[in-house]
């Protein structure tokens, strides 16, 4: 499998994420969309790290640099943290508004 495949998949994921974020009428689904976006990015990083970053040869055997993977891991961590905060805020919203439909949370405007 070549880099292109990964990129295509990641862009599809990204697009799906954006689509979800823009269209879903439920805060949770929006969160999912966000997760999709982040994961598409992680996929990108890993793929790029695998295919693009030059391998260094240490003692005859090829050794890959793992920058991309590392970034991806951090990405996952941050995504988790974000999800946590998001859910907490959604709870607050539900408490205040009795709903988690994003389009009903619009008292601040203009």
């Amino acid at each position, binding site marked *: 499998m070549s880099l292109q495949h990964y990129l295509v998949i990641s862009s599809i994921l990204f697009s799906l994420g954006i689509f979800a974020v*823009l269209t879903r009428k439920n805060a949770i689904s929006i969160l999912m969309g966000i997760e999709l976006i982040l994961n598409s990015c992680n996929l990108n990083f890993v793929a790029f790290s695998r295919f693009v970053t030059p391998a260094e040869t240490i003692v005859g055997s090829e050794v890959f640099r793992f920058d991309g993977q590392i970034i991806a891991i951090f990405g996952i961590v941050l995504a988790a943290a974000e999800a946590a905060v998001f859910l907490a805020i959604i709870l607050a919203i539900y408490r205040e508004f009795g709903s988690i439909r994003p389009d009903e949370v*619009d*008292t*601040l*405007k*203009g």
Partner: protein
Amino acid sequence: MVVPLISIILLAPLASFAIFALLGLAKRNFPRQDYLSTFAMLVALGCSLLLIQEVTSEPTPLTVEWLSLGSVNFSMGFYLDSVTVIMLIVVTLVSSLVHIFSIGYMHGDPRYSRFFAFLSLFSFSMLFLVVSDNLLGIYIGWELVGLCSYLLIGFWFEKDTAANACKKAFLTTRVGDVGMFIGMMMLFAEFRTLSLYGDTGIFEAVATLESGQIAWLSIAGILIFCGAVGKSAQVPLHTWLPDAMEGPTPVSALIHAATMVAAGVYLVARMFPILTPTSSLVIAYVGGITALVAATIAIVRFDIKRVLAYSTISQLGYMMLAIGAGSYVAGLFHLTTHAFFKALLFLGSGSVIHAFHAMHAHHDDAEHTEDAAHEHADNSLVHEHGSEIPPDQDMRNMGGLRRKMPLTFITMLIATLSISGVPFVFSGFWSKDKILGGVLGRAMEWNSVHHYILFAMALIAAGITAFYMFRLIFMTFFGEPRNQEMHDMAHESPWVMVVPLIVLAVLSFPVVNTLWFNKDYIEPPPQHHIPAPQHAYVSPDSKIGDANFGFSLFGVSTAQAAEEDAGPDTAQADDAYHIHHRAHNIAMVLSICVAGLGILLSWLFYHRRRFSAEGVATTFRPVYNLFWNKYYFDEFYDGVLVALTVWKSRLFAKFDLSFIDGIVNGVGKITRDIFAAFIGFFDNRVVDGFVNRVAEVTWAAGGRIRKIQTGAIQTYLFVVLGGIVLIILIFRLF
């Protein structure tokens, strides 16, 4: 010696005004302002008399730097020649007499001392105007006398008529003055100076102009003359002078008969050298028309002061005509003689009015309240002239006063004889004769139709003058009292008022005008652009009544004596002299005839009552109306305004029927209408409007942007996405 004298002449009256003004700031009054002012005038008079022998044949301007702008400089200074001196004497003399007269006339007026302060200020301004050696100085004095005239006409400002009259006077003259100022600007633009005399002066510069390039000079001359038209109440700007009679009678005598109105003539005389044939002719015609028009109007007036006012206008026209026709000396001579007898007439009328008025408490506020009350109804400035004549000025209430007030009668009679040109013994005759002779002389010399016409005008005017002046005398002093109870009130005026009358009466005899008979005391300045055998034409003119007055007294033709100094008798000069000789004889004969005719008719009409004036009036109704309505001048001006504003006229509650009031109100109302509308439109719509539009658009934009801010998070995210796409697109496009 000259400078200190002139300084005293100027400073004395100024000081008397300054004292009043400064004390006024402290809300006080000088105890005897009247004596102060009178004294100041007498001092000035003395100095002026002293100046007589200071006059040198080669007058040199005494100037100081007034403004220095690096490249251009303006200088102020005095110019003393015979004309100046004569004007000084006339002004100071008449002014002193009027001061004295006023002590009696204005007695008991609440603003008594203010009156004298203003008189002093006026005298100062007039004298300054007279002695100034440059146009700027003249203009300054010019406007200052205008101010004083404004202040004095409006002296009884509680009367709306007075309030209107003073404004009208100021504005009408101002219209002329603007013309004069434009003329000054033209001269300045050409010569880079406004001083008249000296090597750098305008007159020197004018001399150097080729006759090819004097077209603009004619325009400049006419424009300068506009100032005179305003001040000397020449047609078409004459309408303010009759209204000016709202002022106290001494003011009319001093300002609106003797001095200020004559300043216009003086100005034209001063500017004599820059006059071109065209401008001279314009001046002469304006003068002639004025003389005729005013005289004819005067015939039908009943307000004694207005009769005199119109007669003043017509006499001023006379002088203008004279100078326009080149009779420089004659014009000025008539100026002086007229100054005396017209002042006398006014003071006399004042004495009459005073007599009638004595019973009314003196012009105190109560009395003004009455006659002002009915006009104060609306704030608009309506005032129909002659429509309501103050009873104490209406000749129809007078009659038979000669027994009541003999002195007044006699003195006024003398003046009347003088103004009517009764031969030989009265100065008026000589001056008028000089004018007629001069005009006719030039006419014959050039045999120019214009001058014949002018001569005719002058002649007719002379006749009419005699007619209406005697009409005045007859209606006032002869016959039976028409208004008995007013008649009974009448009484001779106190001495303080009568003495000036007598003095002026004496001055109406030529013997006192000796200056004019000193043969080369007055020399007309050269006119560079009038192609005429100057000399031959000047010489007979320049020595009125020829060296010794005795001859003329016995009816020996002046022209005959002209013989003696016809100057270098070139053939041309010679026959020029003969022409003038003949001219003068004809003129004299004719003038005597018309004067006699006028007096006779007037006698028949108003004394013998052979014909009834009313009958004539009815037979010649249209003519009569024409005269009565003063040639519809005011109506004409109003007509123009109406035409201007007809589409608005409904909005104008009341339209004003007098000239400047019309202009001001009219323009005022037009302005308040059109301009207020226009401002409303322009300032508020266009300028502010534009700004407001911008503001509104901005606001609207703000509102739009708010609309985008729906509050729904997903729209925001849409915008984000859209933004990203847009940015990328922009990139691709550029």
